[in-house]
């Protein structure tokens, strides 16, 4: 993540294509969808996302929707695929989930920053809320290959909303589940379990993805323990490619505050640099 506005930032690898859907399976409350994306797969890194057009030709939805890449598989000359985990929520995501194999969706990717990887083996903890777990499995694989210990903690309001496919678990050293209603794993909010687990696993680096309020809580814990915290944030995005300035989060840069674009300076950002309490900024922002 680069906070220096003096340096131009472009998604150098981003391509726009019509991607064919080659699988669309309901998994609990989510849809696991696979897209044929050619060379895009090769340049995707854990933490990147794609922006999809939704609603079809005569749709009242004019904006793209962002989805974290769950997995990218490069097949060389055969092209590659990316996989997404989509929660049917509003008009756009429901439309996506209703698509069939063989349908095409306009896709731009890979976009945004990727998770930073420790230069030496470290004890890492990957924390995901709801569909926030999506980008963590590919990250786990990469970290494991680099010799890191990977402890994964996934939480949701209820058991069915935890997205944790079997094949995703093979790279983790431990997997802890938490549910607000106690239907699976530890009963309680995911953040309640984190301090205990950090101590247990001797965690050095935290990666997180999920709702902003969860990331905020995790960030406090990371600061208490003085840990590096890389989080993938989620703000409303209009363009996904850095031209509209809707998706910003306030970030401390030296003594200054900069509103950085989560689509290009993020979504993966250094948790300690983010100003989580937006209200505290009211006076420094434009009215």
């Amino acid at each position: 993540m680069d906070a220096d506005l003096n340096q131009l930032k472009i998604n150098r690898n981003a391509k726009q294509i019509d991607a064919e859907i080659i699988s669309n399976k309901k998994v609990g409350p989510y849809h696991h969808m696979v897209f044929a994306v050619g060379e895009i797969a090769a340049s995707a890194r854990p933490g990147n996302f794609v922006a999809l057009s939704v609603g079809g030709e005569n749709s009242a939805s004019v904006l793209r929707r962002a989805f974290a890449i769950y997995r990218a598989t490069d097949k060389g000359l055969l092209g590659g695929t990316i996989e997404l985990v989509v929660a049917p929520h509003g008009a756009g995501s429901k439309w996506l989930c209703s698509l069939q194999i063989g349908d095409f969706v306009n896709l731009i990717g890979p976009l945004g920053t990727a998770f930073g990887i420790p230069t030496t083996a470290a004890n890492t903890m990957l924390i995901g809320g709801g569909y926030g777990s999506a980008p963590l499995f590919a990250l786990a694989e990469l970290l494991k290959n680099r010799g890191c210990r990977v402890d994964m903690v996934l939480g949701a309001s209820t058991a069915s909303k935890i997205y944790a496919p079997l094949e995703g678990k093979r790279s983790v050293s431990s997997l802890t589940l938490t549910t607000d209603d106690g239907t699976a794993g530890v009963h309680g909010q995911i953040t309640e379990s984190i301090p205990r687990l950090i101590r247990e696993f001797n965690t050095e680096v935290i990666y997180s993805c999920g709702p902003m309020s969860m990331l905020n809580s995790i960030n406090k814990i990371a600061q208490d323990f003085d840990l590096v915290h890389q989080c993938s944030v989620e703000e409303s995005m209009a363009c996904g490619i850095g031209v509209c300035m809707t998706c910003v989060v306030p970030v401390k840069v030296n003594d200054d505050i900069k509103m950085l674009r989560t689509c290009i300076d993020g979504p993966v950002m250094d948790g300690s640099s983010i100003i989580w309490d937006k209200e505290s900024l009211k006076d420094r922002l434009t009215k």
Partner: protein
Amino acid sequence: MNSFDFSTKIASKRFENPIFTASGCASSGQELSQFFPLSEIGAIVTKSIMNKPRTGRITPRMAETPSGMLNSIGLQGPGIDLFLERDIPWLVENKAKVVVSIAGESVDEYGVLARRLRAVQGISAIEVNISCPNVENRGQVFACQPDTASAVIETVRRNIGGELPIIAKLSPDVTDIVEIAASVIKAGVDGLALINTLLGMVIDLNTMQPKLGGKTGGLSGPAIRPIAVRAIYQVHQAFPNTPIVGMGGVSNGRDALELVLAGATAISVGTATFSDPTAVIKIRDELKSLLIERGFTDFKSAIGYAHRQSA
């Protein structure tokens, strides 16, 4: 067909083709250059620049609406110094034609910006965004009253000197847009940009509060196109010799043609770039085909055509 003349002119400046980006919808062009060479389109209209760096408004800054969106960016930007040092040289190097959009909170700020720009090489025109709250006058938007609108333009005119065309960007949120157009034309603009966004609001049904951090935001996208066409038609009817950069919900060649027939000399594409980074290129190609299909041999003769045939 190769002989079709797609160029257009605003005052003394010629543009290869009439498709521009819209201010605030293409940043300063760098990000879009990943998707097409910027020299392929008529001009890049930069995000409105202010004198000082500016953080902009609190988030959420956008809300999708039926066939449109609200934004409340609050003119976040690097300020004129960094802009001149970093963005303009890059745009020149990348062979983009550049229209610089400026914004101020006071008449003086516009004057300062104009002076900073007067000697800068590589700029084709200045677009003066007067849809900004005037901090000296209860935050009333300059574009909303003929006198404040013309005060800004007079100041820019005086400070810019030379032959750089000045384009005044007007707000549709007024009782009589022709009256505002008249006032800025009298104050010496070379062209008009129509239309800026309309003031709107979305209420979040979960929080039961306005969805945007800034409460209200500007409505853009196809939803507002009929209002853009009407505004362009009215103003072109009143001032057929004043070039108009038309915008508002253009997302394909047919939309662009509609604005051209209403009276637009060039077309800015805003929100459509968010749904498709190469929208400008597609719109350019589609517009050209549509014009050729209709028997036009050059772009200029289509401008305002809907007026010429009317009874």
